């Protein structure tokens, strides 16, 4: 117990320390901007990892939930003058409800069928965002008002960096708590053997729905804040390729490892920046990384590295 608690704390402290020191090292706002994008991706991936890595379910539609959150904030604040926090919560509530409604029928599916069904959801969201141009601005996207709360306007990379940093630490903390709880074990049991989980009393359907909803809400909150930060959102943020990118981050970083999801998100956010020559082939590179990960390190980057260290096990 003590060792476990210790492990959780060291991880969180390490993450906090990196986030705290990073701005001092980064030369200018361009890098800060990339760090912020990595942070947003990491928040989504930590949630997605609960679904994919721990509960063993797949979603190829999570960019859709991110997109709904982003557009809920954009539209409710821009067109209807809602306070941004209220719009964020409304978006999260709507995404939660939507995820709940679709989860019941689709989580009865397994493997390829579940992948296809979630893919369908993502595509539907993306189509709606493209075609409802009266509200969403269509394929060109829409401008989003800045985030104002208690008369303070969040503006600029320096401010947003800390917002995202705190959000990420918070989300990681929640995720670690959840995994090390009876519900977290139930989720992992669903992954391990559904029938065995059932015979000791785990209502597997309930937990699959719960984790699907939770991960969708994480994505929605990240989407809302991202919209305010970026100031411009396009349907591309909600499309199929974005969903694949998110899954790749989780798989690459390390399934069933919260810190792995963070590492995966950071590395794969940086990669396209480092390899700008490959810009036209980004999807191909991404697909290649996904395949190589599955073949050469199926557990993902962080768990594989952790296994190489003899003394310490699991992150």
């Amino acid at each position, binding site marked *: *117990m003590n060792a476990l608690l210790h492990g959780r704390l060291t991880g969180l402290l390490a993450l906090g320390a990196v986030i705290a020191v990073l701005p001092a090292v980064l030369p200018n706002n361009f890098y800060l901007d990339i760090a912020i994008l990595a942070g947003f991706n990491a928040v989504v991936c930590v949630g997605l990892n609960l679904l994919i890595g721990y509960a*063993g379910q797949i979603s190829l539609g999570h960019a859709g939930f991110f997109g709904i959150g982003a557009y809920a904030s954009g539209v409710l604040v821009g067109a209807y003058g809602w306070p941004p926090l209220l719009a964020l919560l409304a978006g999260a509530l709507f995404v939660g409800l939507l995820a709940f409604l679709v989860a019941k029928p689709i989580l009865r599916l397994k493997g390829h069928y579940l992948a296809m069904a979630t893919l369908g959801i993502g595509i539907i969201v993306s189509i709606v965002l493209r075609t409802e141009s009266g509200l969403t601005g269509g394929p060109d996207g829409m401008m989003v008002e800045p985030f104002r709360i208690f008369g303070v306007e969040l503006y600029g990379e320096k401010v947003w960096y800390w917002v995202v940093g705190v959000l990420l630490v918070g989300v990681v903390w*929640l995720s670690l*708590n*959840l995994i090390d*709880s*009876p*519900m*977290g*074990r*139930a989720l*992992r*049991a669903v*992954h*391990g*053997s559904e*029938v*065995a*989980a*059932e*015979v*000791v*009393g*785990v*209502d*597997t359907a309930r937990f699959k729905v*719960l984790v699907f909803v*939770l991960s969708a809400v994480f994505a929605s909150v990240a989407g809302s804040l991202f919209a305010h930060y970026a100031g411009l959102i396009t349907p591309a943020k909600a499309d199929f390729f974005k969903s694949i990118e998110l899954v790749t981050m989780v798989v690459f970083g390390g399934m*069933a490892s919260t810190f792995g999801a963070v590492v995966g998100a950071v590395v794969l956010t940086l990669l396209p920046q480092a390899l700008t020559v490959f810009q036209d082939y980004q999807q191909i590179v991404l697909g290649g990384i996904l395949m190589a990960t599955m073949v050469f390190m199926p557990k993902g980057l962080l768990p594989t590295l952790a296994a190489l260290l003899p003394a310490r096990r699991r992150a």
Partner: protein
Amino acid sequence: MKMLATTELSPDTTAQARRVGPPILTVEHLSREFGGVLAIGDLSFTIAAGDIHSIIGPNGAGKTTLFNLVTGVYKPSGGRVLFDGADVSGMAPYRLAARGMSRTFQNLQIFFNMTALENVMVGRHLHLNTRLLPALFRFPSLVRKDREAKERAARLMTEVGLEKYIDADAASMPYGALKRLEIARALASEPKLLLLDEPAAGLNATESREIDAVIKRVAATGVTIVLVEHDMKMVMGISHRITALNQGRMLAEGTPQEVAANPDVIAAYLGAAP
């Protein structure tokens, strides 16, 4: 080690010496077909509380199908299953678990993505706070009960002889230990009725004897046990009653002595004389 004194006597005197408990599980005209083939046909029997009740039969007799019907993994095509006085036919396994029924599997169903101890802790699911918000924010009451569950799981592992695997990853454990891990996990849910599907299959003689002792110890605590097993020595040694199946139907029922002497049973196992 406390043991039911009667189990050490010969099974014949056992039948007279033991007080027969009230029925805990009743199966009435149960049937299940798979694409026109009857796996279980019009099967009726009763299991008394406190018994070790074995189900035997040649391969394909329908033993595992029967287990799956009783534990809600399959839905019956006809008939009823009564558990503790209530009709539970086709009820989902997790609901049955809440009513006090658990089981192990012939083909191991281990959570290989967890440690051995965590496997057993999943067995405490019904006795812990499994709601989302207390988990996300780590409520102190949840943490305290979780720590108790951990200690309890470790004790259970010790009781089934797995003390040296408490910190092991389930994936690193040998087959025989995993068989016992399944029993510990099922026991963690505190069942009234425990169904064991071939707990000794694939084990060597020593390991079989250890499982034998574990089953007796569990039964001595008042848990009713339904056992499917091919190891006849074990079955004859520890069962209070035996139900023999063949091709999905009841062949014989009685004490081990009665069943072993039954000509139909002998014929089913060895082939009928022309």
